């Protein structure tokens, strides 16, 4: 089916997230306004105004009531999804990047970038049931790895936090004590900055994408490397189909290195791979610039991609897609 082009952002997209029901799509971009769309027809529902910097990441609670966003304006904010009202603002001393709600939505993990003399850090915040009780204190702060942490998510049962970033290492931390539990192997792991991380629907495994032109599938509990998907360009975004054994990788030549020679040179396609066989199935073209964000609808029947070109493209799969055999 023809993709739906959603033009609502003025700057490159950074992140996409569906709610649990799959009827809403939240998008973050380098302009300051996270936006919510109807996931079905791409109609814009509204924006969340209040940030004063690029918004890097967002997460939505299970009941679709709360939205959390992390921004370069050194805050992470909680929003009322329905009204667009800002509920709380966590202030930091450096730009916030990744945000993720825990199972049960009572905790949130927020990462901050290295800035001036500060190193990067992972903060765990308690999210109050009633916004008026919300406090800014961190339950836990983990400092340690060098370089930016591009993504941090909760492990099974909120026992662990998984982080990945510029130093190309995936780390698992104890979410109680902040102790480092596991580190990905330098040999088999990524060789360059990890740009994206996406958990499977049941949280049992996750996919990382890296500028080393590959994506890797890991076991969430043991951090065992299960699969590697090799492409021809840096990977900026990854997503896993909840329905079929497919993974999608998006990326392309670095925006600053995009040449004017040929649109094919950049490889701005979203590439589909068979999750098990690690073979390429096909690609979806369209963006005029690298793909920065990918997300699958929880029903597995559509996905959306956000590009450096400022567009969100919403793709509903044709019936043929569900019968692909390789």
């Amino acid at each position, binding site marked *: 089916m023809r993709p739906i082009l959603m033009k609502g952002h003025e700057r490159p997209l950074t992140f996409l997230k569906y709610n649990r029901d799959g009827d809403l799509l939240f998008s973050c971009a380098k302009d300051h306004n996270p936006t919510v769309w109807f996931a079905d027809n791409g109609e814009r529902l509204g924006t969340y105004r209040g940030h004063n910097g690029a918004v890097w990441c967002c997460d939505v609670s*299970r009941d679709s009531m709360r939205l959390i966003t992390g921004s370069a304006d050194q805050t992470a904010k909680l929003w009322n999804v329905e009204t667009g009202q800002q509920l709380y603002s966590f202030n930091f001393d450096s730009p916030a990047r990744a945000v993720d709600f*825990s*199972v*049960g939505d*009572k905790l949130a993990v927020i990462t901050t970038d290295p800035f001036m003399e500060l190193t990067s850090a992972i903060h765990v915040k308690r999210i109050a049931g009633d916004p008026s009780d919300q406090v800014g204190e961190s339950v836990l702060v983990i400092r340690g790895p060098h370089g930016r942490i591009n993504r941090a998510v909760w492990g*099974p*049962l*909120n026992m662990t936090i998984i982080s990945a970033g510029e130093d190309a290492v995936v780390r698992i931390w104890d979410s109680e004590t902040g102790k480092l539990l596991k580190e990905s192997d330098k040999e088999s792991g990524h060789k360059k900055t990890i740009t994206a991380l996406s958990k499977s*629907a*049941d*949280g*049992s*495994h996750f996919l990382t994408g890296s500028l080393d*032109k590959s994506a890797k599938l890991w*076991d969430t*509990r043991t951090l065992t490397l*299960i699969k590697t998907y*090799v492409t*021809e*360009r840096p990977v900026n975004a990854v997503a896993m189909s909840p329905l079929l*054994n497919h993974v999608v990788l998006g990326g392309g*030549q670095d925006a600053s*290195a995009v040449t004017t*020679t*040929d649109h*094919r*040179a950049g*490889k701005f396609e979203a590439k589909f791979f068979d*999750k*098990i*066989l*690690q073979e390429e199935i096909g690609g979806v073209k369209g963006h005029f610039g690298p793909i920065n964000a990918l997300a699958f609808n929880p029903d597995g029947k559509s996905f959306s991609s956000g590009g450096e070109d400022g567009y969100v493209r919403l793709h509903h799969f044709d019936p043929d897609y569900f019968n692909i055999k390789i």
Partner: protein
Amino acid sequence: MADVMMMTDSIDAKAAQLGIDLSSVDFDSIRLPPGDDFGIKSDDEDIYQEENLEFDSGFGNTIVVDNLPVVPREKFEKLEGVIRKIYSQIGVIKEDGLWMPVDSDTGKSLGYCFIEYNTPQEAELAKEKTHGYKLDRSHIFAVNMFDDFDRFMKVPDEWAPPETKPYTPGENLQQWLIDAKARDQFVIRAGSDTEVLWNDGRQLKPDPVYKRAFWTESYVQWSPLGTYLATVHRQGAAVWGGATTFNRLMRYAHPQVKLIDFSPREKYLVTYSSHEPSNPRDANRVVINVFDVRTGKVMRDFKGSADDFAIGGTGGVTGVSWPVFRWGGGKDDKYFARIGKNIISVYETETFSLIDKKSLKVENVMDFCWSPTDPILALFVPELGGGNQPARVSLVQIPSKEELRQKNLFSVSDCKMYWQSNGDYLAVKVDRYTKTKKSTYTGFELFRIKERDIPIEVLELENKNDKIIAFAWEPKGHRFAVIHGDNPKPDVSFYSMRSGQNTGRVSKLTTLKGKQANALFWSPTGRFIILAGLKGFNGQLEFYNVDELETMATAEHFMATDIEWDPTGRYVATAVTSVHEMENGFNIWSFNGKLLYRILKDHFFQFLWRPRPPSFLTPEKEEEIAKNLKKYSKKYEAEDQDVSLLLSEQDREKRRMLKEEWEKWVNQWRQLHEDEKLERQKLRDGEASDEEEEYEAKEIEVEELLDVSEEVLSFD
């Protein structure tokens, strides 16, 4: 790594013990006495094997100047001044580097002195330049390297017969030719790794043979018959080969070697280096050595300034074009030649000296090339005297230096010569000025070398103004292809040197209009050609059958920079080398344009097929095989079938394995997920809906009573 860690620990401890602050020590300034490694093994074994190491304290930089005037003490300073003046022109003399010994009895000098330079190269140069220098009539300098004294002193007085080393059988260097599957090898260089692989067209993948990191410091090259792989290093070149592993067979010492070139029969190796002069006004110093490949002996060396090796002619071309020496004379690497100002110097390899002791004098010669099979030189002289003396192309027989054929050409701007691989034909592409002299047009002069009197035919394109973009002879054949016209859609034409029954006339076979091509690649066996659009055309490929005059396939290898046929003409490699960052890697195609496999490698530098020596089969035998191809091919077809069956079987098996393995993971996860169900519910405040995956669609019927009205109907 652990060793190094330990070592630094012990260094720290030692330093603390001695009360030295390590951070204040400049490690780079510490020099170890030469020859003593303090028990620390170097990582680089090569350095220790190298004999010509440059040590500060060695005498390699020192020369001895003899036959100086013997002077009394008063005149010391004056003489020293003179010597210093002469020798500091050549290079930088070290501080206190000039020493003139004195006879303690007479107080006079002894008539010789020592001069120490900063580098051995300078010393070498000084020796070369001033040996035989006439200070005055009775004082002619005799200059020697200091080290040579030592060496020649050690020569025993009596001649001892050289020891005959017992014969040790070497490896079979041709082992790769007897591969059971008749595959070809190729070498690739990507990142720091150099790798030799089999091309397994049946299995659709390469099969590794040998891999080594940092094998070469600049590039690698196969010898023309494929026996050796040559690598280039700081200290010189080396060749590698052997039955199974690539062992080093020979080394050729040549410091700072830049370029290498084999003779066609790989008997000799020519190495080239260029050295910055100490005086920036001078031209670079060029050193060229010719080695015997097998013995590693220097057969001849050429030294001089870069100007001497620059291409001659009136064009004033600067720089040296490689290869400086071009080999000719067919089978036995008999001759090699280079072009100079107004001369062509032809050397023969028996004595490594000029033929007849003198060069071939040709005023203003611009370019020359050897016939690939016969000792014939083709040379081109441009127009002189504003057109009074026409340009000419002539064929010269070697060693007799007799002119076989000459052709005068008028209003010529440039000429390019193309030999057909059997030496049967020579095509000369002639660019001529139009009458207004404002633009040029191109024609061809076609020489039939093997026919009596060497007839010449002139070929002009139908549209005379077409630019010639590329020209290529069919290897071993009688056809050639030309790309002509204007970008971006030039035409491609095919011509044959035979027309129908008449073998003496050139005829056009066909013209393909509007092809995106700028390069031609004939299969080494002829018949097939790839019309390629490299660079600007982004890697368009057209596989064309010239026998049938039909296109077999069109394809694209996006951004391709290089195309190379394998030596048998069965496969083609197209590569994107690291001229740009993206897409680096190579594709292997079948001769008819089917993509077999694709390998991506970052920082991909080189792809080279290993050449094969010419076949031992006689032409008759080859013809017989071609005739009965069906009979021979049956066996191979059956093999192909087996392999492809096996492959699909393996593939199925692999997929099944992967699927099973995955199932195992998934089951394990499901189990864990199930186990944690309760806990998860607790985290969610006991919210029961843990059916994250299992959606349950419930149909709920709601009945709503909207309105009730009663009406009495009369019953008739």
